[in-house]
């Protein structure tokens, strides 16, 4: 496992793609977050709703580059045929897959932390004093939102890795992941029946997982912050399981 992990880490470290994608994640997240906060109308009471959530809006965009990065770690290997070398070097496919997942987790956690902290910092610079108070990292809910956002991005990475492994193509993998993330909430919004809409919102990986960013009235109509992230974790686990099993069962 250690050598496999080392190999995967070297691949991620030395290829130009992941580095640019990680940088892209940070820039995109911070940029969209800053745009959102700079357009908010703030009064002494607050900034119209959940300031922390507003300051972390960019995650909607950042998760797309994370999805590419993750899908590419395996989809790229299928594209170039490198997967054969990988599996020849580490014949235990489960181990090779796990090593990929662990290396990816590390990289995404690193980039995600920079993106989330950068967004909050940008929010504090942009917003007037009332926004500053809401975005103090000393406040428990804000710290939880930042930490949760990093975990959320890691889970999206793992979800994307699992799906890309299952379909053996990074473009299709990214399409499916972004479908799950972006389209499920839009589809659920068209369901008129409140009960079903709630159910869909609670089951969708993005709307459930991002409830970890709620700092005002956590809970509400959504699941609690951690339970919501748990739903995303469930999706990621299912995708990893499906990808792992298919990788073992299939002829590369």
């Amino acid at each position, binding site marked *: 496992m250690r050598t496999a992990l080392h190999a995967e880490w070297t691949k991620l470290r030395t290829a130009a793609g992941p580095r640019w994608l990680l940088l892209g994640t940070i820039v995109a997240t911070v940029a969209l977050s800053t*745009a*959102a906060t700079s*357009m*908010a*109308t703030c009064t002494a009471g607050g900034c*119209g*709703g*959940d300031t922390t*959530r*507003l300051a972390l*809006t960019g995650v*909607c*965009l950042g998760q*797309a*580059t994370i*999805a*590419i990065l993750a*899908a*590419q770690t395996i*989809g790229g290997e299928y*594209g*170039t045929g490198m997967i054969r070398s990988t599996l020849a070097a580490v014949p235990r496919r489960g181990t090779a897959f796990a090593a990929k997942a662990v290396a990816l987790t590390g990289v995404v956690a690193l980039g995600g932390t920079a993106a989330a902290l950068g967004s909050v910092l940008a929010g504090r610079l942009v917003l007037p004093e009332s926004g500053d108070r809401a975005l103090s990292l000393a406040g428990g809910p804000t710290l939880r939102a930042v930490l949760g956002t990093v975990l959320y991005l890691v889970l999206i990475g793992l979800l994307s890795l699992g799906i890309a492994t299952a379909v053996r*193509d*990074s*473009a*299709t*993998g*990214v*399409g*499916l992941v*972004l*479908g799950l993330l*972006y*389209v499920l*909430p*839009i*589809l659920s*919004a*068209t*369901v*008129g*029946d409140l009960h*079903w*809409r709630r159910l869909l919102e609670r089951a969708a990986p993005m709307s459930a997982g991002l409830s970890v960013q709620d700092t005002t009235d956590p809970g509400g109509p959504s699941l609690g912050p951690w339970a919501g992230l748990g739903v995303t974790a469930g999706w990621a686990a299912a995708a990893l399981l499906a990808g792992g099993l298919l990788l073992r069962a299939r002829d590369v």
Partner: protein
Amino acid sequence: MTPAVTPYPPGRGAGFLRVLHAEWTKIRTVRGWVTGLLAAAPMMVLAALLAGVGGNQEGAPPVPAGPHGGPVTDSFYFVHRPMAGDGSITVAVSALTSSIPKGPGDLGPGTVPWAKAGLVIKAGTRQGSPYAAIMVTGGHGVRMQDGFVNDTAGPPGPVSAESPRWLRLDRSGETVTGYASTDGTHWTEVGTARVSGLGSTAQAGLFVASPPAVRGGGTAGSVSTATFEDLHTREGRTGGHWTGTQVGARSPSFAGYPENTSGSFTASGSRITVTGAGDLAPAVRDSLPTGGHLRDLLAGTFAALIAVTVVGARFITEEYRDTTIHLTLAASPRRSRVLVAKAAVLWAVAFAAGLVGTLLAIPLGERLARGNGVYLFPVSSATELRVAVGTAALLATASVLALALGAILRHGAVAVAAVLVATVLPCLLTALPFTPAGLSKAVATVTPGAAFAVQQTLVPYHQVASNYTPYYGYYPLAPWAGFAVLSGYALASLAVAAVLLGRRDV
């Protein structure tokens, strides 16, 4: 497997046709691509099914419709008595104040620009019945309105005890004329309305309406009180036998009174004080929250968009991946032609699949929704056709954008993500309740997601204050202007791709 490659002979048109045919054969014979493109249609239908069966409004009170056929809000406090045949009614308005709840049960003064107090002649107290009215408003001066959608501006300025406004309505057959005055003797005509269906005996009198105030991304119910003086009809000064009625008390387009308030009128001497809420106006998405509209039935567009985007990007990146691009370009050395042929074939197939999807999804969704008692905002067949064709064109153009980005980046995953982020994410951002309205309008104007304006069917009204944002189905750009934004991105990307394809060493 080494196929012999013969470059196409030079001749202009025939050469392009052969490239076109080659690309058509490619797209037709790769099973995954065909499935992906054709999947667009069932995705649209499935989403329409979901939206159609998802809502249930059976047993809800019917949505009132005005003489123009559209949904209306016809809920207000009416102090009236019968007016047989032709007649005239005059009053002075000396105060109009509005209140908005600051919290539960805590009413505070506020400004409601379209709060209305004045005179109305109406066929009856049934919702949706024809009328003509003249009124003072909270922030838009004197207005003459009829048929729910017609609005004419009169003298501007607010009313107060020092500067009251006299209002007069004259009925002569089907013609109602409204006048305004600052002193009760010198009158200026504000407007004339032809109102058919007033009947031989109409109801005439005072009314007060107070639409919900727009606040943040939502609305808050309001209530307004007006003071009237010097009410008289052509037969002379009257008193006593006026009836107070809350028109349309239970209606899907009326949110009701704020807590602990209700409509009422009191008369003391020549002074009458009337309190009311509601509106006499066309219903918009905000004021008719249970109403569905065409866009809801087409949510499958987003799922279909993903399918056509993935195929569009792979249509070229796959060639880079397994190096068939070498063969393709050897067979047709004029490289930009290959790109144009690919784009044309892709656009046509995606458009056809999308059109089948929309043409099936729209009637199916409408039928299911209506069967469940859901009221749908009415749409003309021309608009319906525009939405169907526009949505198919949106899908096709987005897949060409993915093709062009795929050719530029030579990387399928990045191209797919770029297109989806540029088209779907804007819609998602505008749908989040905490997204500032400015950001929401900006992304719906400059990103390729602006093309979703082709699905706009709702009409904004200047005389109804509401949240006219993409979230509610009101786009900042006109339908085809929004589509042009996406087309611009697609064409520009194709041009860049053509240049790069020509310059690069494959």
